[in-house]
Each structure stands twice: as C-alpha cells, then as structure tokens.
C-alpha cells in the first residue's frame, strides 16, 4: 500500500521575469515501512519537492499534478485542511535544525505545542508525552532538556529534537531534509538509525533527502536520483550503487572521493536552472553518450524489471556501469624528500585568538613545529576547531603568530606593517573556501585573476598572454572573463580562484578547504584541475581539508591536527595505511565511502560533550579509549615511529618508553 503517490508533479516558482521550472514531471511512490532516499545536487529540486508535499510553497507557485498521501490529494486541500494535514498525515524534519527551533520558547514548550495542537490534553499529559518523545530519540536528560532553550543545545541534540517534533503526531509520511548535514560520523549513524526505526515501528513511509549518497545508503531501501527537476533513475539501493545505468548516476557515484585515488574527470558542466519545462533531456550537455533522440525529446521514467526505473534513451550497459575511471597515480613514498633545507620552517608556533573583556582567549595553535619542503604537496587534515585554517593563514603570512619563530630559505619575511604597504611573504598565494565570496563582486572576473600580476609592472601584452594561458590551464572559458562573480557557478568561480592563485607563479599555494562548499560533481572537477596543475607546475602546495579521501588523492605528505597540535605526520601512504595515533585511526574509521571495502575496525572516540580545558597532558585524554593515567600528565611530543612517520602519542609510539611496552602488549594479544 503506497502511502506517498506523486503523479507527474510540475512546479514553477519565482517572480514573473525570473521563473524557474523547479520540478519537471516527478512520479514517485513510497510504500508503508519503506525508507526512500532522494539524492541530488544543489538546484536539482529536492527541497522544492519536500515543500510541495508539505504545501509550503509560496502562494505564487504554479503547481500541476497530484500528490496522494494516504489516499488524499494534498494539493486539493483548503487552508484549514492543510493545517490538519501537516504534522499528522505528513510531517517534515527540516534542514538546519538549530535555526528551525524558535529561539524564545523552551524545548518542552515547543514539543507540547505540537502535541496539544490537535487533541485536547491536560498539560501534565502533554508534558509526559513530550518527555517520552525525547527519550525515544535518544535524549536521556529529559528534565533538563525540556526547560532548555535551543541555543543551549548542540547540533546533534537539535537534530534529535527536530525529529521528535516531526514525529510527535505520528505521521504516516516522514520527510527528513538533509538530516545529517554537518554532523560527525557517529551522530550521523545515530540519527539515521532513529529515522529507520520510526519507519519500521510505525509502518510509516520515509523520504530522506540528501546530497550525500554515501551516508544515506546504509538505511535506505530504494534510491531516486534527481536531476534538474526530474527523476533520472530509481532502484533498490545496492543495485543502484553497484550497477548504475543512467550516465548521471554513474557520474555522481564516480565523483564521490574514494580512498584508492582521485578519478580523472573531464566533465565541466553544472546543473542547469531551467526556466521552462524541458523539451529534451536536461543532462544532454554533460553526457558523453548523448544521441539525437536525447536532444529532441524528454525521456520518460520507465519501469524496468524489479524495482528499477530509468529515464534515458541511451543507458549504460552492465559492463560500462561497473567500469572504474582511471585514477591519478598515487605518490610513492620516496618522493617525499625531507633532507633538503625547508622552504618554510615554523618553530614553537602559538596562536591565540584574543577573547573579549576578560575571557582568556582561545589557543588555536599550541607550540607547533612544522617544515614545508620545496615541491611537495603537503596535506593538513583535521576537523573544525583543529586550527588548520589558522595554520594556513600563518603559512601564507596573512596572520602573525602570537609567539614562536617563522623562518625560511627562499622567502623574504617582511612582516612589518606600515601605513602604505603590508608586504606578506613573497610568492605565496591562497585558494579560499567560498569561491564566490572571495572574488570582488564589483569587479569583472578577469580583473580578479590578473591582480597578483599588478605588482610586477608588466606590459599589457604580457598580462594578456599570461591570462589566456592560465585560463586554458584551469579550464575557464574565455566567455566568462567579462562576467561578475555572482553570475558564475560555484565550480566556475573556484576555477577562477585557482587561476588567480597560479598566475603569478608563486612558490607556495595554500588551498584552504577549496571544495567543501561545492557539490560532489563540482568537487571532482576542481580536484582534477588542482591535480593537473600541481603535476605540471613546480609550486609547493599546502592542502587543508577535513576530507581524508581528497587529501589522500592530492598530497604526498600529511599532518593530522587536533585542537592546535599535530598528532601525527608522515607520507600519505604511511599515515593512511598504517595510522598509529588513536585520533587518526578514529578519523579513518569514520570515513564513509561507497565501496566500504576498507571498513576499519578501530574503536571510535568517545563523543565530545563539552570543551575540556587544555591540560598539560594529552589533549585527547578523556576521549581516547586507550588512555591510561600516564597520558593525563605526559606532554605528548611528536616522535619518530618509523622513518619520517611521526606520532605524538606516548602510548602507541614505540619511540617513547610507555609506547614500547604497549606495542609489545598489543602484539602479544
């Protein structure tokens, strides 16, 4: 029995001059007890679909088609009926749970609002029901939570509360919109499990919307892939992941970073924003299998055998579906040469963000030592709060360290400030995280690209020459040069940013999370551009990221940071294939890849509920499952574990006396 039955839904939104055809003929059925994932990139129309089902579209939206929920077409309901429908028949756990909770009402009150909304219950009954609800989503301290306000809750708690709010009236259809955005791996698993449990227990239909296939794959029964407002492929989860027949599905799966290397990717396109209902297949411009039929008419979603539906005139066959793309070669260990003089050398570097009026301030970097060598691709890995961005800014000279020494062979360090000119280290450039914000919105893009050259006083012809050379190398089309940043897509803008970084032939380029704000397919494009350029040019690159797979595919050497300190460093090969520090191991264990072929068994770290004050001893103490009392008092130092593999853990590292004994312990187990 299908709880959700969408039939040829078409939605157009926007003001008269700028209409967007957001949903173009979606047909979708979800049965009771089924967990269905809707996957797509930015602009595909996922949120629009959710809003349509919940009747939350703006009044000016043009909607056609039918959406049956529990047998009733929700598009036909009048305003009063809609209020009854929402929450009890269909409900949604919205994106950004923190901002979706009202800041001025307690959690308890917000729960009671929903519970007592439809049926008259006494206040005590409602509060008791609220507490039960909180327990069912995994919140144990219900009394304190009921009286708390949203801003006092962590992100994970907010997400749980959002789910509690959504399921409070036991809806037959639950929509979860990006439920795991910005949550770490353990929480993600937890939340997804909650959603799955609800479905099984109440025999409800669940629609999970996500841009991250890897995380939702674990609990979904079926997956639908959305592109430019239409579903292009739909199948049982394992079949879709293992045997994708639509070229876009395949592209999507190929772009997800894998631990075995970076795939060579030639696509440069992005999701089109359609202003009219499409008369042909929207993917054609990016598809290398496009035929004439694809240009002429729009393929319909046709059900094939079993649970598989496909909208394509020229789908992949089994062989092509399973084919892996060629990858860039992984750097062998020998390339890492640490015997020459380093380009940049940081000793005992500390950086403190000053607090406001009385609070002590926040130590972003703590007594750090680092060398950067010529020609290498150094990766800096860590979660948010580890200090990696601050380190990047100090390396480039944008920030001055609070204490410690920065020196180098080639670079002239004139870190003084005067009112006319603040020279930073010569020949260092940076690629930033938000591609569009980091370009001057009032300047045409070509001006931004050539800006680093202005200091050299080159003749106009040389500048033009360099410009055309660079845009070819970063694959920026000449037609984009006269545009303003806001009219570019994320991928285009980031390529412009890379062009700006390489144009003056800098000695070092620092990449600060250049792909974290981009969609998967765009990420793959950018990583390709970066990799090609670092192969063909001689600059040293420092790549900062929280994504281990991309770091593995781009870098030779890597350092792992946690709360301002380096916990482990070595070649990519050493650290990723043989991690020693418990933090590194836990990070690697949480990497969710599609293949899951390298599922690790290492123990996860205990969750971090509060920010523990920094102690003298190991910063991981309290979270590390292996910690002993000695760890609390010994200052951890980076010591060699194996050749150039350094680890700062007195227990696991045989370089230290504590470590030696524990290693032999482990071996004897």
């Amino acid at each position, binding site marked *: 029995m299908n709880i959700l039955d969408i039939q040829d839904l078409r939605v157009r939104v926007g003001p008269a001059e700028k209409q967007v055809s957001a949903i173009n003929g979606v047909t979708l059925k979800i049965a009771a007890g089924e967990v269905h994932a809707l996957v797509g990139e930015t602009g595909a129309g996922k949120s629009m679909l959710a809003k349509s089902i*919940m009747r*939350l579209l703006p009044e000016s939206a043009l909607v056609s088609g039918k959406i049956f929920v529990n047998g009733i077409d929700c598009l036909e309901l009048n305003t009063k009926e809609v*209020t*009854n*429908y*929402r*929450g*009890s028949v269909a*409900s*949604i756990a*919205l994106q*950004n749970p923190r*901002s*979706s*909770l*009202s*800041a*001025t*009402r307690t959690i308890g*009150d*917000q729960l009671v*609002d*929903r519970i007592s*909304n*439809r049926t008259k219950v006494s206040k005590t009954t409602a509060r008791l029901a609220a507490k039960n609800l909180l327990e069912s989503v995994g919140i144990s301290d219900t009394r304190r939570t009921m009286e708390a*306000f949203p*801003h006092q809750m962590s992100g994970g708690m907010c997400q749980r509360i*959002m789910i509690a*709010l*959504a399921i*409070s*009236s036991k809806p037959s259809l639950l929509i979860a919109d990006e439920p795991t955005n910005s949550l770490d791996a353990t929480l993600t698993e937890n939340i997804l499990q909650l959603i799955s449990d609800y479905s099984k227990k109440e025999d409800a239909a669940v629609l999970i919307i996500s841009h991250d296939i890897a995380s939702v794959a674990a609990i979904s029964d079926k997956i639908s892939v959305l592109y430019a407002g239409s579903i292009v492929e739909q199948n049982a989860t394992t079949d879709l992941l293992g045997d994708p027949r639509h070229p876009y599905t395949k592209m999507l799966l190929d772009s997800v970073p894998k631990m075995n290397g970076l795939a060579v990717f030639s696509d440069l396109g992005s999701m089109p924003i359609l202003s009219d209902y499409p008369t042909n297949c929207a993917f054609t411009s990016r598809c290398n299998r496009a035929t004439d039929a694809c240009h002429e008419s729009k393929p319909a979603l046709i059900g094939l055998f079993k649970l598989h539906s496909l909208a394509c005139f020229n789908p992949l066959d089994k062989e092509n579906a399973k084919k892996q793309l060629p990858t860039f070669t992984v750097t062998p260990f020998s390339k890492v040469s640490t015997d020459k003089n380093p380009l940049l050398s940081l000793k005992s570097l500390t950086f403190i963000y000053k607090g406001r009026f009385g609070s002590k301030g926040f130590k972003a970097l703590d007594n750090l030592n680092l060398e950067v060598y010529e020609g290498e691709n150094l990766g800096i890995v860590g979660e948010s709060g580890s200090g990696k961005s601050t380190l990047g800014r100090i390396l480039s000279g944008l920030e001055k360290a609070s204490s410690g020494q920065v020196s180098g062979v080639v670079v002239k360090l004139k870190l003084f400030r005067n009112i006319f000119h603040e020279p930073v280290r010569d020949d260092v450039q940076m690629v930033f995280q938000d591609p569009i914000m980091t370009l001057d919105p009032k300047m045409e893009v070509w001006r931004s690209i050539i800006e680093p050259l202005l200091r050299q006083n080159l003749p106009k012809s040389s500048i033009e020459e360099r410009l055309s050379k660079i845009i070819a190398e970063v694959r920026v089309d000449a037609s984009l040069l006269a545009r303003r940043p806001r009219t570019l897509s994320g991928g285009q803008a980031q390529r412009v940013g890379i062009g700006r970084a390489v144009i003056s032939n800098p000695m070092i380029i620092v990449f600060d999370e250049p792909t974290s704000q981009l969609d998967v397919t765009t990420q793959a494009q950018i990583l390709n551009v970066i990799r090609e350029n670092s192969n063909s040019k001689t600059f040293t690159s420092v790549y900062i990221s929280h994504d281990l797979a991309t770091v593995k595919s781009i870098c030779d050497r890597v350092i792992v940071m946690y709360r301002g300190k380096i916990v482990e460093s070595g070649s990519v090969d050493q650290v990723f294939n043989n991690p020693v520090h418990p933090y590194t191991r836990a990070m690697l264990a949480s990497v969710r890849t599609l293949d899951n072929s390298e599922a690790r068994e290492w123990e996860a770290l205990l969750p971090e509920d509060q920010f523990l004050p920094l102690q003298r001893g190991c910063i991981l103490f309290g979270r590390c499952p292996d910690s002993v009392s000695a760890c609390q008092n010994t200052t951890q130092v980076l010591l060699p574990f194996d050749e150039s593999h350094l680890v700062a853990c007195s227990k696991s590292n045989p370089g230290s006396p504590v470590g030696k004994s524990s290693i032999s312990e482990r071996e004897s187990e």
Partner: protein
Amino acid sequence: MLVGVVTFTFLLVRILPGDPVGTLLGPNSSAQDRIDLTARLGLDRPIYVQFLNFVVDLFHGDFGKSIQTGRPVVEELGAIFPATLELIIISLFLALIVGVMLGLTSALREKKLSDRLIRLTTLVGNSMPEFWMGLILILIFYGWLGIVPAPSGRLDTGITVTNITGMEFVDSILTFNKTAFISSGRHLFLPALTIVFVISAPIIRSIRASALEVIASDSYIAAKAHGLGGLALIRKYLIRNSLISLPTLSAIIFGFMLGSIVLVETVFAWQGFGQWALKGLSLRDYPVIQLTVMTVAFFYIIAFFIADVVHSILDPRINI
C-alpha cells in the same frame, strides 16, 4: 563613560562664546557691576579651578545656582522636569501600543490594502515635523472644533493639584482630584497626540520589518510545517520574536524625544524642561546648561540600561 560625559559637558559649556554676565545685566551695565557679578559667580577664577570646584560640588550634589535666578538649578529642575517626563512617558507608552498593533497587522496583511495604507501613513509620519503637527492639531481641535482648551500650560487657570510627583496627571490620580484629572488630561491630549503620531511611525516600521522577518524565518515555517496555525501560532511564535528589537528602539526614541521635546513644549507652552534648557542655553546660564546636558545624558544611559534588561528578558540567548 560617565567621566567622559561630565568632562565633555564642562568643556562644551565653557566653549560657548558669549558672556553670561553681560547678557544678564544688559548692555547698559557699568564695568564695575560686571566685575562684581563675575567675582560673585566665581567666573573670574582660572579654568582648572572652576573645573575642580565643579567636580567637588557635584560630589556634594551641588550643581550650582542659576545665573539668571540665583536659585539652585537642581531645585529648578525638580520643578519642571517631571512635567516633561510625564508627557514623554505617556506618549511613548501610547505610541508603543499603537505601534505594535499596527506593525503586526501590517506584517500579517502584507501587500494587502491595509498594509499599504499603514505604510503610507508611516511615511508621512516620518516626514512630519512635530512642531508643525502640533500647530495643525491646534488649528483643528481648538480653532475649528473647540474641544480642547487653549494651548497654554498643563492646567486650566484656577485649578490646582497637590504636588507629589510634580506630574499633574499622575498627581491628580493619586489624590483623587477629579477636576484636576480632567483638566490635565485635556491639556495633555494634543501634545501627546502630536508626539504619538510622529514617533509611532518608526515603531510601526520596525515592528513590521521584524515581524516579516519572523514570518519568513526557519522557525516559523517549521512551526507551520508541523501543523500549528491560527492565533496560537501568532501568539507563541510571532509576537515575542518580533518584539526583540523594540527595547533598543524605544531607548533611542526616548532619547530623541528628550532632545526635541522643546519643540512641542514651545508650541503648547508646556513650561517644561525643554524650554527651561533652551532659555539657559540662549542666556549662557552655565549651571543650567551643565545640568541639562548631564540630565539628558544620564537619562539616556538609564533608558538604554532598561532596554538591555528588557531585551535580555525577551531573548533567552542574551545574558547580561
């Protein structure tokens, strides 16, 4: 902050060109008279001595004597300030009620006729000089309709009220004085109406903008998405969140009123603080000016303090 204000006051006043003694005694005074008066007022001593005396006196609560009347300025202030305060507070109170109601209505009926009308009215209100508004109201209500007494003072002649707070309206309530109550009320009517019309404009606009923001916010949509609606939705999710910016705005408006109340007082001959201050300013009556400036700054700071407290009550995210 207070130190800055006090010093600034002293300096500001001393920078004023013009000679209070000469102004007081008139152009026909003899040089000897002027010297005598200057010495008597202590104005012949060096500046830093004057400043020291000033600060010391402050600590004793002695703000000096008015050069014009010779009476302690604090006493004079006490006589007229409550009346002004009464006018300001009553007007602000009414304006807040009107402002919140119209602002919320406007936001809930966005783009409909009532919204447009309200917005148009606020645009006019923002363009209206209060002194002229007062005159027009006098023309209409007194000149043509005759339902309001002549604009002079706060009570009809012959009616008195025992002085408890110095505010006639409040005092008449406290002493159950019916005639005084009606009389002061009628005198309050036009000035208050003038002020309310002018200051409710920014209040309506601010509330409207806040309310629209709330309606478009994630949390409001989330509440709707879970089936909440009607009056309960508005009461629990809209109102409080829309009022968050109100305390600060009220403090700013309070300060603004304190500064420009002289305009309304002049039109209605209210004999209040504004007029007293203006006279002192024109005649270079230093103690008066000093006390004026310090009073204004003092109340301005208090207003913001109260606003902060109310703000933190409304918004649980703030801890003072």
